[in-house]
């Protein structure tokens, strides 16, 4: 079962949890869909309503930036560790 690491700034949207075990794998989209079912307020901070990854949110699958891989189609094996990190942006 993949594990999703939640950044501190978003933990309030995940019941205070820093690590979520998600009962979905295969692709990053499938994992985020399951997050949307269980923690909808977390998922909508990561993707917009059209399912697009928000511009200043980075998601790493086993250390690889999904944008440098296949985006939301990035393969997610059952043992994957998925890290959500806000990018360096702002003023």
């Amino acid at each position, binding site marked *: 079962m993949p594990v999703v690491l939640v950044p501190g*700034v978003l933990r309030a949207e995940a019941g205070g949890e820093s690590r979520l075990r998600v009962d979905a794998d295969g692709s990053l989209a499938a994992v985020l869909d399951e997050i949307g079912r269980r923690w909808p307020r977390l998922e909508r*901070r990561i993707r*917009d*309503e*059209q399912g697009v990854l*928000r511009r*200043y*949110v980075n998601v790493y699958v086993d250390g690889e930036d999904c944008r440098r891989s296949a985006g939301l189609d990035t393969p997610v094996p059952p043992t994957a560790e998925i890290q959500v990190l806000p*990018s360096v942006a*702002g003023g």
Partner: protein
Amino acid sequence: MTTLLAIGTQKGLFLATSDDDRRTWQVSSAHFAGTSVYAVAFDTRRPGGPPRILAGVDNSHFGPSVAISDDLGGSWQEPDTAPLAFPAGAGAAVERVWQIAPAGPAEPDVVYAGTQPSALFRSTDGGRTYALVQSLWDHPHRPQWEGGYGGQAIHTILPHPDDPQRVLVAMSTGGVYRTSDGGASWSPSNTGVKAYFLPDPWPEFGQCVHKVARDQADPERCYLQNHHGVYRSGDGGGTWESIAATLPSDFGFAIVSHPRRPGVLWSFPLTADSERHPVDLRCRVFRSTDAGETWQPQEKGLPTDPYYPVVLRDAMTTDDGEPAGVYFGTRSGDVFATRDEGETWSAVAAHLPDVLCVRAVQS
């Protein structure tokens, strides 16, 4: 009597309160610290409780939302699912909430919201959740609405106070659109408003309207601050005529009307599109008491040093007090107030983040 002033900034929402008829103010720490609050509204239509505060909260990383508070900011609620969202297949996502506007007293649970990209949303549960007004989104003009520097957004929503079928919205760019059939259809309403930046300076639509205010005593009269040009309508926004003749400049963003007295309004003129600072670098508000025929500067108590910051489109407002209070905030984080309709001014706050919007209410 407590006066509550909501100050939306680039990095949070501040709530200022005054318990001595607006002489002194206590300013809260930031709610939603670090997020941009482009829209805030007080909903005073619910009997028996404090006004509901509705805040459009825009997190630069994690997207937009709308939060509400029924205890004057003591706690905030928002739904699990996005309160505003385009339907699947719309080809757009909400980028920012620019305006939140409770409807008239006949529709006590209806709240409108205007977004970037230019879209109108309507809530029927007091502003908790919203649905896209599809008729305006499907308007055949929409592909020709363009974005300005601030983005392309519906930033003004004026429900008619007496007729729920009538709503006026304004967007940059695009201009004014109105419905008189409850939102079933929308028509551009920019006759007389100039778009100097287009080959045809008098188009049916495409104007860069910065703000529209409705005269609170005469709802058929409206005032419009354009991207160069200040106008008045006497027919509910159907046609417009210039009222800029005695202003020092026809450029600016904010325009507000008196809560009760007809023909009384305020603006904060800026030099020009290419020189966005107060005219002559003087921090001055201009008031008209004759519906814009003539304007008089008001500056007693305002800074006297050369003043560069601008007042953005929603960063000026009035309260419902007697005499009326007027408030404005600047991009340098100054907030000023008057409790005598502009005769004298004093500081409410300084050194806040850029002020994006202000709203005030007495309770």
